[in-house]
């Protein structure tokens, strides 16, 4: 692939983001963004889970290995978890995961964990905009590129 083509590719690049949203807060927040008609880029594919604490690191790694450019995990605000403290467990797991990402040659900025409540439709939409732009700047996942070869 020529240098010129590569640049062109990066310009056109549309990040593929997998979003794991907890049923009680973030998924409801994403719904509220919808009912409020707040527009955001169509790059995220949401997978509903019951709690951010149930998002297995394996899911995140698998998504990245399969070719996602970013993974978003949304949970309830600290203290608001529907299941008492599942979001804290998600946070702990995320710290460990960041180390693993480095060894795979992936930027830790490809995996986002954010707290979004059921009443934060605007925040959800803003976060999706921000993440899409951020991943766009990072460029396609180096692993995904590897797999594309």
């Amino acid at each position, binding site marked *: 692939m020529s240098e010129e083509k590569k640049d062109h590719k990066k310009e*056109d690049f*549309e990040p*593929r983001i*997998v979003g794991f949203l907890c*049923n*009680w*807060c973030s*998924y*409801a927040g*994403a*719904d*509220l*963004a*919808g*009912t*409020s*008609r*707040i*527009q*955001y880029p*169509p*790059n995220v*594919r*949401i*997978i*509903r*889970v*019951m*709690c951010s*604490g*149930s*998002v*297995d*690191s*394996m*899911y995140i790694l*698998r*998504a990245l290995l*399969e*070719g*996602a450019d970013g993974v978003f995990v949304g949970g309830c605000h600290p*203290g*608001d*978890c*529907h*299941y*008492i*403290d*599942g979001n804290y*467990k998600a946070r702990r*797991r995320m710290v460990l995961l960041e180390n693993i990402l480095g060894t795979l040659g992936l930027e830790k900025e490809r995996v986002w964990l954010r707290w979004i*409540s*059921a*009443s934060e439709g605007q925040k959800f*939409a803003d976060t999706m905009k921000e993440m899409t732009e951020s991943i766009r700047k990072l460029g396609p996942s180096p692993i995904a590129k590897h797999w*594309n070869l």
Partner: protein
Amino acid sequence: MTKKSETIGAIAVVGGGITGVQAALDLADMGYKVYVLEKSPTIGGVMAQLDKTFPTNDCSMCILSPKLVDCARHQNIEILTNVVVEGIEGNPGNFTVKVLKKPRFIDLEKCTSCGSCEAVCPVSLPNAFEYGLVKRKAIYKPFPQAIPNAYVIDKEGDGKHRGCVDCMRCVKECKSGAINHEQKPEHLLFHVGAVIIAAGSPPFDPVVKPEFGYKKYKNVLTSVEFERVLSASGPTQGKILRPSDQKHPIKVAWVHCVGSRDASVNHDYCSAMCCMYTAKEAVIAKEHASDIEPTVFYIDVRSYGKDFDKYINRAKKEQGLRYVRSRISEITEDPKTRDLRIKYEDDKGEFKEETYNLVVLSVGLCGAGERHSELMDTLGFDVNEFNYVRTSADDPVVIKPGIFVAGSFLEPQAIPESVMQASAAAANAAALLKDSRGTLVTEKKYPAEKDVSAQKPRIGVFLCHCGINIGGYVDVPAVVEYVKSLEDVAFVESNIYTCSEDTQKKIVDAIKKHDLNRILIAACTPRTHEPLFQKSLRDAGLNPYLLEMTNIREQCSWVHMDEPAKATEKAKQLIAMTVAKTRFLQPIQEAEIPVLQKALVIGGGIAGMTAALSLADQGYETVLVEKEKRLGGYLHKVYYTVDGIDIPRLLKEITEKVSKHPLIKVHTSSQVKTLKGYVGSYESDIQTPTGMIPFSHGVIVVTVGADEYTPHTYHYGKDPRVLTQSELEKVLSESTKEDIVDGETFVMIQCVECRDEKRPYCSRICCMQAVKNALKIKELNPRSEVFVLYRDLMTYGFKERFYKDAREKGVMFLQYDPEKKPELESKNGLVVKVHEPMLGEYLKIPADHLILSTGLQPNLDNPAIGKLLKVPVNDDGFFLEAHVKLRPVDFSTRGVFVAGNCHVPKFINESIYQAQAAAARAATILCKPTLKAEPNVAFVDEDLCSGCSICISVCPYNAIERVEEKKDGKTVIHAKINEGLCQGCGTCVSACPSSAIQQRGFKDKQILPMIEEMTEKKLVSYLKES
């Protein structure tokens, strides 16, 4: 011999709008037989005609339809349409309701709603559901989602137009022989223990106000007609076109208070919802066509409800709604262009004229006694001066013993209030009939479940257009074609509204006909609609958990409205991902969990006491916990009202009733310290002055109240002449005529330190508090001076009459601009400086007393209580209910309910009915000894489990234990999950190092295929292609 119960365990609900439907569902869920008696050929009422609802802009039909379907399917509910109530005789607990059932001329059992009769009918009449904007046939179905889902013949016509001409073409055409022109009216008798009147009230007809030009000029519509114009299923399919030339209007004006706040038509009341629906209509119109320039002509913007102010501000800022404070003198038409000229006087007293392409009149409601007086006359109810039924403010939903009322039959109001009153009426009926609960009901029998677990997947996919909510942005036919190509998909279909009753039938039929064993619904959010579709699966003999939903509305069409091609591609991929999961769905059988039939009420103000009484009167043991030394809460700061509640008497009586009730235990100076468990079986530790008391209960009602906000401006706290409204109220309650001298001047400032950026909400009660105190001052000495400096006077509903009364008694109301707040000059005495727009200059009012209306602030404990109970608090610090319109007292967390000022500031009568509503909703859980457990519980593959116990350490519910068992002579150690305790969070699943624990409905085998589908290369380039 056992004594037969003396009351009848059945209730007649008169009216099948959202209010009647909610009351019916609550009572039916509690174990009572319910007859819904509806005058028209369908249930649904006005809400079925609305396009969207404020302040969430939810699609009205989308949130209503599941309730209608639930109502139609409920084993304990019988719906009778085309009926007129002719009389109610008997006594509380034992009434006979006389009903005239008018002929429908259609056999409901036989009609398949195919529509072939309609095609051949030669008669054309104005379509009443569309407010006459289009025609319909004499044989018709009121609207596509009508329930019963059947046709009806209009023999009478509408006065001007003849109905059915008896040509009998429809009879020949009908293949199922459903039409019977010989049907005769029938007189029926229903024996019930109680009656709930939820008959609604009709919109004002502006023909009697010729200055607005309604019916004279084609391009003047009412707001109810405009709802139909906005609706995707309406006469213009949601395109905004004006009637005269079907052209798209740019300049559109809304005129507030048509038929409301108008003495000339004896409507000296505010219709309470028009300000908000006007903003909503303008916002949605802008959404449909961004070139529309909306202008709203108004007197006050009464945005007194939860999040209403934020909605109005957003409408102004983001949608560019232009608000003109004015009084309209006349609307005339330019005969050439058919445009309309609005002549008005603005807030500076100048006369102006503007031209609009379309004018919408925001009409209010009319008292039931005014327009359809038969019911009011027949039943002999006492009416107030506005032709609405009269009830006592401290017993707001009781007309007379055994006969209850809810919704706009009582007072003009929006949907949440109606829904609360519906549940409150249900609570009252349930308390009256508690001894006959469950005597007249039968269990719903579903067909036996087919075992499909080992079958190869045959997936049925049902896509929803949702009117134009999805179909307007996502190319549904293209998605259908795409889905057909997916592996294991055996059947694909799209429907205008997948949630409608007739589509449920289609789903059941398709499952049977095509032998489908997994179902995917691509529509809106599973959070609201999953239960509805699960029932359809059960009706078809499938386990309800063989259903998966894809959210292509909230998370696709509504958030990518500007990018339809990308939205379509996203919808395709989301469905493909969900197909990947659906393929691996397995049936789930929920465990039955026991329900402790006792309640905990937190907070002992008027709401808490009312909730406790209502629960106890329904037969449930209740513990009421109050933080302060005595019961009563904020009621201790209220000394008098204008709507006839004797506050000291009310406080004394209810406190006594609560304290003496054998089923209520009160703990004052107490707090709930810890809470464990879940719906059905909670365990609380209550810190009381005598030590920690444990209590086990099945539900929780939160009623922790709110308190008056303490201001920091206008020298409050520094100058003793500056008081809050509550402080003034106390002083006035102790004052005599001699205490106020002639000319003594009171200046009241409304919205102090609120409705601003810091506290962006309206406290709803303060305007009325100012009016009430102003009237009291005038009563004490008519020669005193009272000035009320306000932004928008929120005297909604019948409160308007007190505002008028105050004006007539000489109270001066001066409106101020929030940009030019009143200022205080207090060098020599108190002088309030305020900008008067009419004069265009500043007025200086020397005051003897400055009174600040500061509103309520939420209880500062709310966040902590929210954490304890796992329920959310909104940005303003009030509790956030499950749904602002239709679940106003429920939390998303099952088993926890809310009422009173901690939900949002409200009046005493509103707290009372909301508390009764919370008690009714709680009773729908408490009435049964068991409840179905969570379906999505975790389970252990014992062969894979090494017994490492990591899961035990992460489980927040102590639902996992380590067990040692003998298996084939060997001792094995493994984890074991208690399904009653497991709440289905899945934390143990992700913690398990050997993947031995899986969560039902969210197994690795179900989630990983979704990830693979999303990242699969064939779909990778979707964005670039589109």
